[in-house]
């Protein structure tokens, strides 16, 4: 089988602040755009409602103002609600390679890991300062160092946290869990054989 393993030790680019707590996946990618059988067009639908006025014109939503950005900076419990991978897929396809935030909903973080998008955390003040810095420096470069667990922007270097499993997966290039687990097929069979409900089935 072919895997798409790659080591992700560092991502960088300009930033886009997406302020607000509890930003749910229904906002990130409204359900009405999930009726496509591929993820190909998802970038077009990212924050679809929030980015538009009532007359359908683009408003001053950060995604409209920071076109071309690679690092999204978000607040707490980002990506809560529905499990739809459409949300991080849309972000990735729009151009997001990494996320800095206060905290994430777990399914969202797992989905980011599956896509090889580092999602790192820092405290409220640190995140807010970075968001403000981006507003003042829309062309400023931000660098997420996954290995060192730091984020660098301008003259500032901040320490950030990254979930251990995500860090290992990205740095060691083993975030393709299908390949990882596929090689353990015989062990899976042993586990199944021990399950009272799975063998000699209904």
């Amino acid at each position, binding site marked *: *089988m*072919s*895997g798409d393993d790659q080591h992700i030790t560092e991502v960088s680019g300009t930033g886009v602040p997406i302020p607000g*707590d*509890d930003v*749910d996946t*229904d*906002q990130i990618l*409204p*359900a*009405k755009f*999930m*009726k496509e*059988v*591929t*993820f190909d067009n998802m970038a077009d639908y990212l924050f679809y*409602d929030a980015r538009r006025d009532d007359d359908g014109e683009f408003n001053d939503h950060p995604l409209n103002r920071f076109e071309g950005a690679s690092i999204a900076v978000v*607040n*707490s*419990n980002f990506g*809560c*609600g*529905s*499990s*739809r*991978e*459409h949300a*991080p*897929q849309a972000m990735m396809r729009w151009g997001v390679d990494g996320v800095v935030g206060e*905290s994430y*909903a*777990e*399914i969202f973080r*797992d*989905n980011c890991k*599956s896509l090889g998008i580092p999602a790192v955390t820092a405290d409220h003040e640190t995140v807010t300062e970075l968001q403000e810095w981006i507003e003042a420096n829309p062309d400023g470069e931000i660098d997420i160092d996954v290995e060192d667990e730091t984020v660098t922007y301008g003259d500032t270097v901040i320490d950030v946290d990254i979930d251990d*499993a995500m860090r*290992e*997966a990205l740095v*060691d290039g*083993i*975030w393709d*869990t*299908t390949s*990882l*687990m*596929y090689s*353990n*097929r015989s*062990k*899976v069979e042993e*586990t*199944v054989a*021990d*399950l*009272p*409900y*799975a063998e000699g*089935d*209904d």
Partner: protein
Amino acid sequence: MSEGTLYDKVWDRHKVTELPNGQDQLFIGLHLVHEVTSPQAFGMLRERDLEVAYPDRTFATTDHIAPTEADKRERPLADDQAEEMLSALERNTDESGITFFGFESGKQGITHVVAPELGLSQPGMTVACGDSHTATHGAFGSIGVGIGTSQIRDVFATGCIAADKQKVRRIEVEGELGEGVYAKDVIMKIIQDLGVDGGVGHVYEYGGPAIEALDMEGRLAVCNMSIEGGARAGYINPDETTYEYLKGREYVPEGEAFEERKAYWESIASDADAEYDDVVTVDADGIDPLVTWGINPGQVIEISDVVPHPDDFEARTDREAAEQALDHMAVDPGQSMLGYDVDVAFLGTCTNGRVSDFEKAAAVLEGHTVDEGVRALAVPGSESVRTECEARGLDEVFINAGFQWRRAGCSMCLAMNDDSLEGDEVCASSSNRNFIGRQGSKDGRTVLMNPAMVAAAAVEGQVADAREYLDEGPTGGAGGVEEVAD
């Protein structure tokens, strides 16, 4: 670290190995599939030339895009995209040897309604589905987790997910529920107490007298909304209520095999001396029905209370969220939700789309009609629920009252079919999420409540206390009829 809990035991039984990234490889005993999150995963599988490893442990149905009007189920569906999703699922399941419950099967419906009623969800299993409400199945004493599309690919290819073990929080729910107060109110009370992100990093084990007293359908409603409290999964230890429910269901073994299976089920329940990472107590004694006033499920009050002031919240984030909510919902601090105008009444979903939910709503509706300004939809959670309700004559109660009686699907829970809020309509909804835009209109407003409360709101055209309908003489609830007959 927890020890001796159901979560620990089920995890251990399903753990294949530890992966180099530190996560555990966990076998998934039941994989549920629907049309929206699976086609991309089947695509990824094909790209890698892989096949579905455990088709026998995989079951599919269509729910999110399913039209709920009988004449709109003719194929091809009028909505091209919906048709494409449905045909893709039919093709994919057919090619992979996966059982698919389509419209014609009589078993189609919301995955989290279908799997329990068929006896597919059982104690001591791991259940995964590309849907965050997979926690529902924890009502049987299983670990149910919502997964993303890449993880669906993992389960297809390997039968497993890569997962981190969570902490276990025991939620001891004390007290007794009064008349007209239901499981939905219990879980909303829990979320009110613990917050929408209170469960992050944890699974919830629900227990205590208020939980043990619930029937299976009530337990399903509680576990369903675990994710609304931030917990990835939630479960209830299996007991006689669980075993009785399972007996005789299609996918449950019979006779001696049932007893053997039951021995396994009993063995995975949390030990009396199990160690939890955390234990909290929630007092549900004598609570009133709850309704949301805001834009997340934690912005919720008992119906006798008033909308809080942003300053009432300690955390800055809660204050900001409250302000946004007041603005979106057009409510004021200090206001009661009673009398809040309602345009749409929506009954159904994986939270409250089961037979007993329709019974509760019907008890309120009997002898009443829906307010003329209200569009009222009753959408059974599955086709089996629909036929069962019809066998009991409940459909007549809804139709006579002025409800539309529909076919099974997710419907206006997330408006991926034709059922949607328009403009800034207010919906009294038995669903589980009141996020902005959730019901199809970005200005739409959702008030979450139990199914009896939805019925009362439909009748009055405003948020009302359904308990007033339950003890009101001959045309009222079931109890009333008997008293008069005496």
